[in-house]
């Protein structure tokens, strides 16, 4: 798996038991996942969950402590330059040189990236009405974000990594930023990884989901499969977890009944029809919130029990 796979078959992103330790604390550990080319992946997790650690290892800003990450088949330790050319990155705070003009920033981009597309950069600024001679410090937050995005897109990299790109923007600037990202993805088949806190906005943006809490991947996979593989069960309150047709992710107990989001075994579910039980489909936000609120001990137990030992588990989206 360490061999470079330069063919078109390599996933856009692959992490294999990836981990990063800061002193005694693991910022991220045991992270195994894959994002296929052309996907738009949402990366969700609370602050400190390891999102930025993961992203910085993807873009090569941070070396893994263990495991490895590859971008279109190019692994971390080898070929750093080759890998960097494949990733465009927009950081949270849109770092640009304040005293530079937009044209200066583009000159810098051209000097640093052999594949720089000056025509694309200028055309985008024209379409957005941002004059090239304007100094960065005189631009609005939304305009600065657009310049950062343009810097990343003009690299012509097939993977675009966005770390909380819109958290500092007002709603209109956010929408405009994401419109540009989605139009670019439609245009070029770009693979995108977006870290975001705004779960409600992610549903329309991503077709792939990665939920990270406490430095661990809670769930990762195609959104459609994940939604199809989970149910919201309404059961009598006394029902123990072990009797549920699937792996309980999050449980809300009322006086007489409990609502449980389960990773369902659909065959088991069909055989489990009992009076007073109800199984409803889950929505995107509900699914994400269930994993974000999942109790850590559940997650730990999940890590130590082999998938095959748990009857309720749909095994395809867990680590391989």
């Amino acid at each position: 798996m360490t061999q470079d796979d330069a063919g078109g078959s390599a996933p856009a992103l692959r992490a294999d038991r990836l981990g990063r330790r800061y002193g005694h604390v693991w910022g991220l550990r045991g992270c195994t996942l894959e994002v296929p080319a052309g996907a738009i992946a949402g990366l969700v997790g609370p602050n400190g969950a390891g999102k930025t650690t993961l992203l910085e290892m993807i873009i090569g800003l941070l070396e893994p402590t263990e495991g490895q990450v590859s971008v279109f088949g190019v692994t971390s330790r080898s070929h750093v330059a080759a890998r960097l050319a494949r990733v465009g990155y927009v950081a949270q705070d849109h770092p640009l040189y304040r005293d530079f003009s937009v044209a200066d920033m583009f000159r810098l981009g051209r000097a640093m990236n052999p594949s720089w597309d000056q025509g694309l950069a200028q055309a985008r600024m024209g379409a957005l009405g941002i004059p090239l001679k304007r100094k960065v410090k005189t631009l609005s937050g939304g305009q600065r974000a657009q310049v950062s995005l343009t810097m990343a897109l003009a690299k012509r990299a097939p993977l675009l990594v966005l770390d909380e790109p819109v958290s500092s923007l007002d709603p209109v600037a956010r929408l405009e930023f994401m419109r540009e990202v989605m139009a670019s993805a439609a245009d070029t088949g770009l693979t995108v990884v977006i870290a975001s806190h705004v779960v409600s906005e992610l549903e329309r943006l991503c077709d792939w989901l990665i939920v990270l809490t406490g430095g661990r991947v809670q769930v990762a996979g195609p959104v459609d499969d994940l939604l199809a593989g989970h149910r919201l069960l309404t059961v009598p309150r006394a029902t123990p977890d072990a009797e549920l047709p699937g792996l309980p992710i999050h449980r809300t107990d009322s006086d007489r009944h409990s609502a449980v989001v389960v990773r369902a075994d659909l065959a088991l579910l069909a055989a489990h029809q009992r009076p007073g039980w109800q199984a409803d489909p889950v929505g995107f936000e509900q699914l994400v919130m269930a994993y974000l609120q999942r109790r850590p001990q559940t997650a730990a137990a999940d890590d130590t029990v082999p998938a095959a030992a748990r009857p309720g588990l749909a095994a395809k989206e867990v680590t391989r």
Partner: protein
Amino acid sequence: MFRFRLDGASGVPPYLQLVHQVRQSLLLGYLQEGDRLPTVKEVAGDLAINPNTVVKAYRQLEHEGLSGGRPGQGTFITSTLSLPPPEAHQVLRAALERWLRAAGAAGLNDEAVTALIAVARHDMRKERV
């Protein structure tokens, strides 16, 4: 050009919202056979929505026989959806009015009627799946 909209709070998956809008517009006559739908890029850039979602919606419309792609030209409406003839409407409406009167006589208020209809439709949809 036809333009889609998206309601983030509706709970309906985005691709289904797009499909519903085309169906509804066909029923209301806002869309007609031969009309061109916006390109995937246009919809993605307009709504800030995942282009794969648009592709999925267009595939569904094609599957339903409502639209079709012409290579190099785009996606076009290929069918008309018309409401059932007015006579059928009148019959259904008369039956509905009878039912609503019966519901009122049984003590159901507007809210209860709406809830009952929603539950019944929900269950019927489930049976179909």
